């Protein structure tokens, strides 16, 4: 099938030469099965090799190709060109500083992720020889949907709270904290309590629900945050123990 020429407005910013970001327009021959990422790669390969963007797996797993397409945070590998009408506008993820072109600085996000200890915390680690931590299917079901996060940061770009409070721990990190708090094998609830219940933790969320709307893996971070509010309140009131609570 013949390619169709589509117009892309791509935000460019090269700090060595640009005072501020500006849009550059490209006419891109697109095949019917093109996703926006294919169009960006076509620009880089055949039109303008100086365009910088991140991508890796091309199958919605690695989470590195997130950008704003017509203002909405999406994985560009999962955004079919044919589903957009007219000019397609591509920008880097909002709420992050731009390193260059479509590449953003994710340090703040990674720091927030680490702050909630998104791993299994045990008071005393089992020896390898003592075997694995067992879990029933029902216990897995307790947290499973929150474990599908791929750290793509689309929810950070969508979050209106983060837009005015950059220190907000944010949807993905809180959803992951909640995921481990709900995990029957985990005993790290107390260690996550302070981060989650600080002013920039769960209580900063105004439940706009944008995070859950844009999540490409159908995680529901807004629900996680608001469940974590309930847990935090009960813990604060000592109605629930702060230690090893599930």
């Amino acid at each position: 099938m013949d390619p169709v020429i589509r117009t892309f407005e791509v935000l460019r910013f090269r700090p060595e030469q640009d005072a501020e970001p500006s849009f550059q327009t490209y006419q891109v021959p697109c095949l019917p099965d093109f996703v926006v990422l294919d169009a960006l790669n076509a620009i880089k390969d055949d039109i303008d090799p100086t365009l910088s963007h991140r991508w890796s797996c091309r199958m919605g797993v690695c989470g590195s190709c997130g950008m704003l397409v017509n203002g909405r945070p999406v994985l560009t590998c999962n955004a079919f060109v044919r589903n957009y009408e007219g000019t397609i506008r591509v920008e880097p993820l909002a709420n992050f500083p731009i390193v260059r072109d479509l590449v953003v600085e994710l340090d703040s996000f990674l720091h927030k992720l680490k702050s909630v200890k998104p791993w299994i915390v045990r008071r005393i680690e089992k020896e390898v020889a003592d075997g694995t931590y067992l879990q029933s299917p029902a216990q897995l079901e307790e947290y499973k949907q929150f474990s599908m996060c791929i750290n793509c940061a689309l929810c950070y770009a969508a979050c209106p709270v983060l837009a005015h409070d950059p220190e907000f721990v944010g949807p993905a990190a809180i959803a992951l904290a909640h995921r481990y708090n709900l995990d029957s094998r985990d005993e790290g609830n107390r260690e996550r309590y302070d981060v989650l219940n600080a002013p920039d933790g769960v209580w900063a969320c105004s439940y706009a629900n944008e995070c859950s709307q844009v999540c490409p893996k159908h995680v529901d971070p807004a629900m996680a945050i608001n469940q974590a509010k309930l847990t935090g309140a009960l813990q604060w009131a000592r109605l629930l123990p702060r230690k090893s609570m599930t």
Partner: protein
Amino acid sequence: VSINGANRLGSNSLPECLVFGQRAGDHAVRFARAGAEEGRQEPLVEQAKAEAGRIQSLRDKKGGEKLAQIRRELNAAMEAGCGVFREEASLQACVHSVRQLKGRYADVGITDTSRIFNTEIVQALELGNMHTRTDFPTRNDGEWLKHSLVHFAADGPRLSYGPVTITKWQPEERKY
């Protein structure tokens, strides 16, 4: 040495990263520290300078060959010559194509000279598995149950072999 050949190809990449990547990283750090403690920094500095020079020389390349075109032709040659099903003739043809492409790569043109997130230079640096030889349909563990090691050398790749350590799972013919 590695798990390649003892396991399904697609399942090798994660342990490669997580297990062997960590071992390689730890070893590299120990090696570098030992070098620093023995006061042999000069070779490391020289090596770093050579690497910086290699990247700088890429940045300066203004040849007529297009990076994307060489990559596409390399993809096509590898797919045709050494995909999952391969044979002597297709492998030979692929070696020939890759050598030609290496020659053309020397004349590549780089457009992006930026020092910030320069993915064109990264792509240029990137330009270099269990499979089935259809002309050898019978399994030959007597001769080939060993690790094949390819070493980089200035005059072309050097091949050597290492023994396989078999622990719990005995190798057997795949009949499904």
